[in-house]
């Protein structure tokens, strides 16, 4: 899945929409919601690992965009701005959970040692990995990463943002993003290795 892209090149840009919304056009806000709700939901869901909470945080994200629309300045890309809001909310949620000691892998309802069937098709490493690594397993292992690794791997490898955009969203230097992405990938590889070794 990719980050937000306009389907129709003639449709207004995000920046044009937020500008119209700043001038009082509520229809422009509705278009922003339609454009961003699913990519943002996936970003938040991969971050917090719970769809219901992700949707609540997404509601809060749009509420903040609505209330703070005049805080947006055209110097930044709209996507950077909205992803920063959503990322901050998701991070705060994780901190709250940590404090309450509610974080549990059992929330996902995935059994630790569940065996998955391997197809007998002609061997193709990528298809083979697809059958070994179910979405739930990947999500569970993403949840085990620390938030700083989790957010970069979601933004880079799932949402496919550029390093430059990630650097702006997270407000950290581009070099830090690159080294953090590399370390996150190595960490995820060491966690998923046991599933990949079954081949």
């Amino acid at each position, binding site marked *: 899945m990719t980050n937000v892209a306009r389907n129709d090149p003639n449709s207004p840009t995000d920046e044009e929409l937020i500008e119209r919304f700043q001038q009082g056009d509520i229809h422009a806000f509705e278009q922003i919601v339609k454009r961003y709700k699913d990519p943002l939901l996936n970003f938040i869901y991969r971050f917090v690992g719970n769809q219901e909470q992700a949707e609540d945080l997404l509601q809060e994200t749009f*509420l903040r965009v609505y*209330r703070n629309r005049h805080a947006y300045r055209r110097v930044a890309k709209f996507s950077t701005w909205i992803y920063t809001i959503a990322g901050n909310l998701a991070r705060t949620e994780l901190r709250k959970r940590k404090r309450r000691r509610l974080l549990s892998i059992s929330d996902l309802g995935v059994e630790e040692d569940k065996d998955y069937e391997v197809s007998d098709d002609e061997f193709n490493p990528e298809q083979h990995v*697809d059958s070994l690594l179910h979405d739930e397993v990947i999500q569970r292992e993403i949840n085990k990463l620390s938030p700083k690794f989790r957010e970069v791997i979601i933004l880079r490898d799932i949402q496919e943002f550029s390093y430059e955009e990630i650097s702006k969203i997270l407000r950290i230097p581009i070099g830090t993003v690159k080294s953090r992405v590399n370390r996150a990938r190595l960490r995820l590889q060491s966690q998923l290795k046991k599933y990949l070794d079954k081949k």
Partner: protein
Amino acid sequence: MKSCEHYEELCSRYLELELSAAERKDFEEHLNSCPSCREKLEDIRLIRQRLKKLKPITTTPDFETVLRAQIQMSKHMGRFGRSPYWPLPAYLRWPALGLAAALLIFAVTFLFQRGGDFQWFRSLSPATETFATPSSPSISTGNIFYSLELVPLPQKKTHAENQPKALERQPVSGQAGGEAVHDSVQIAKEAREKAKRYIRTVSF
């Protein structure tokens, strides 16, 4: 010879074609001689491919309806999402509470200081008054002696008006009696004037 950790740091740059030709050659030479790094790199490549294929989730059908309702609610609550019962934005909450606490401490300190002042406190309680008279029993406070007597007031009157009466109740005897009465009237008059001046200074 460089360690595996050194090449691990280059994994992403290798996969994203960011290494220079020399770095790339060096990296590949290491891969040829190190099955562990080769396997790790291959795993990362496959995991990245797999992450791109994660099934996306979608919002529930009533998402936009709920959002509209929340926006309407937030409009009712105010621009900063504040309660109608809390008239200040959230960022002023703690400064306002601090200021209120400081004012309260100041007010309590002020009242205690003035409450300790016997004359002022008495002017607030008209039901009974305490007067110093020669006939009342003496009590000692340190080196200072006071004579106290409780005198119920028939009407709401200030201490200044009552004090002379108490003083006039002094026993009068002998020929010097008339002079004594004259003296006590004089004393009472002076006391009244003094008390009036004092009350003026403490009134708000």
